[in-house]
């Protein structure tokens, strides 16, 4: 079953002089095993929206159903939070335990699992993120490097075996290698476990490369939604909103301006590359 967002609106501090409408009338469905990319510039409501997906914020209008469970119901929230794993920006700042293993065990422990089960999940999650448990389990999380900390924090979420994984800028502040590692981890989670991914990102290239569907937020509303080729074919509008375009799309535009006609609006570098090679050989 999917996550259904129905006419979701959210106003911060409603009824006060500081009331601030952050989201208005958003309807969107996130299907099982789907990779949804969310883009929008700063202040467009991305972070507010994803916090509704596991009931950290409650809608001030409309509703959010996770596998049919309404986030407005307090009793269901614990269940919802174990279904929807949430990785905030800079998740390494949430590490607090003495050892990496204990920190990763925090989530499963809160779910009320058995000791054996927790141990198994910790082991599995650490292996998955590329921190071999035999080396890292007993280390203090504060002794790890930046990239390792991020992966340890990610393991803390994965150990809950969420059905959906929501990530807010998971690659922010990482070097190219760290970015690639996190991205391939996310991609393999989806392909092997069928985990649904919702990723907020400023990197159009990453979204273009991995997402099945893209939602564009602007000023708290859903501006457009669709497959990457549809979204990026409306490049002009994205640029007007202050968003960038993927490198491949920019290159297509530049080539067109110089009279090189291409049959598609490419948005992935690898596809553009092979198209250009084909053209060259023809």
């Amino acid at each position, binding site marked *: 079953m999917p996550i259904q967002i129905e006419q979701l609106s959210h106003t911060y*501090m409603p009824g*006060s002089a*500081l009331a601030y409408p952050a989201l208005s009338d958003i309807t969107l469905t996130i299907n099982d095993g789907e990779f949804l990319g969310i883009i929008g510039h700063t202040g467009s409501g991305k972070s507010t929206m994803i*916090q509704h997906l*596991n009931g*950290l914020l409650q809608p001030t209008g409309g509703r959010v159903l996770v596998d049919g469970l309404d986030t407005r119901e307090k009793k269901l929230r*614990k269940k919802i*939070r*174990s279904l929807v*794993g*949430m990785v*905030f920006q800079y*998740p390494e*700042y*949430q*590490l*607090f*335990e003495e050892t990496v293993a204990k920190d990763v065990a*925090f*989530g499963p422990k*809160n*779910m009320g699992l058995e000791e054996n089960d927790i141990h198994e999940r910790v082991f599995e999650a650490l292996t998955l993120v590329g921190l071999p448990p035999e080396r890292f389990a007993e280390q203090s999380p*504060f002794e790890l490097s930046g990239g390792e900390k991020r992966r340890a924090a990610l393991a*803390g*979420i994965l150990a*809950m075996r969420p059905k959906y994984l929501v990530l807010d800028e998971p690659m922010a502040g990482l070097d190219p290698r760290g970015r690639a590692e996190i991205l391939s981890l996310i991609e393999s989670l989806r392909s092997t476990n069928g985990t649904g991914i919702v990723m907020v990102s400023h990197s159009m290239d990453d979204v273009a490369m991995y997402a099945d569907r893209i939602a564009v937020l602007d000023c708290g509303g859903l501006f457009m939604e669709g497959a990457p080729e549809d979204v990026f074919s409306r490049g002009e509008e994205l640029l007007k909103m202050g968003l960038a375009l993927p490198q491949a799309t920019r290159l297509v535009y530049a080539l067109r301006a110089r009279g090189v006609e291409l049959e598609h609006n490419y948005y992935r570098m690898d596809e553009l590359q092979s198209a250009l090679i084909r053209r060259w050989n023809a």
Partner: protein
Amino acid sequence: MTANITLGQFLPGDSCVHRLDPRTKIMLMVLYIVIVFVVDTLWVFAVPCLLLVFMFIMARVPASYFFSSLKPMRWLLLFMFIINLFSTSGDTVLVQWWIVRITQEAVLRAVFFTLRLVLLIAGTSILTLTTSPIMLTDGLEKLMSPLRRIHFPAHELAMMMTIALRFIPTLMEETDRIQKAQMARGADFESGNIVQRAKSMIPILVPLFVSAFRRADELAMAMESRCYHGGEGRTRMRELHFHTGDLTASVLLCAVLAGIEILERLPL
């Protein structure tokens, strides 16, 4: 949760009280406290009460702020009232029931002390309502600067206060973020007994402290790289100057104090 914390509670405005020099306001607030403590007879409290109303009007602070300034102290006020009501001995018994004994003297005393506390709290809130935290620390620094002769770190103290004030919203935001992140991992801060609740704070406090230390380190580095070296020979962007309003306000409060002294000595 960030909404209900009004530390500093500064209310921006352009009244004549807002425009007073922060040094004057701090000194006058001390004088006001003296005035409230000098009053010894219940009916003389009318004078500081009128003064308080006058201050609220001059500062153009809505009356609702009077109550909201008392709100955090309501339990203390109630406690003070009750303690005085039951612990004061006297002769004119009003109520006598079982071990409860309330005398007229006790009622007067309870009203007296509660009123004194109310005047203190509401009056001092005028200072924080009309003075921005930055002005307040500037004023304090200036007032404390003569103490530098005896190696009292006036500038450093004021700088620390400014930094502390500056970081309150930042750390509040940080707390909110960490709390949400841990809630997403199933942490529960709302149920359980007091020990369990205290324990559930650890996942918030540890990351918060770690980040506070990191921020402190970064800030120190940033200040040093901009050649900050303490208060020695440092000039200010906002210079403080006394105006005629400061003189008027000072004279007024001194007159009130003198008036109260006279009233207290009247044979009434």
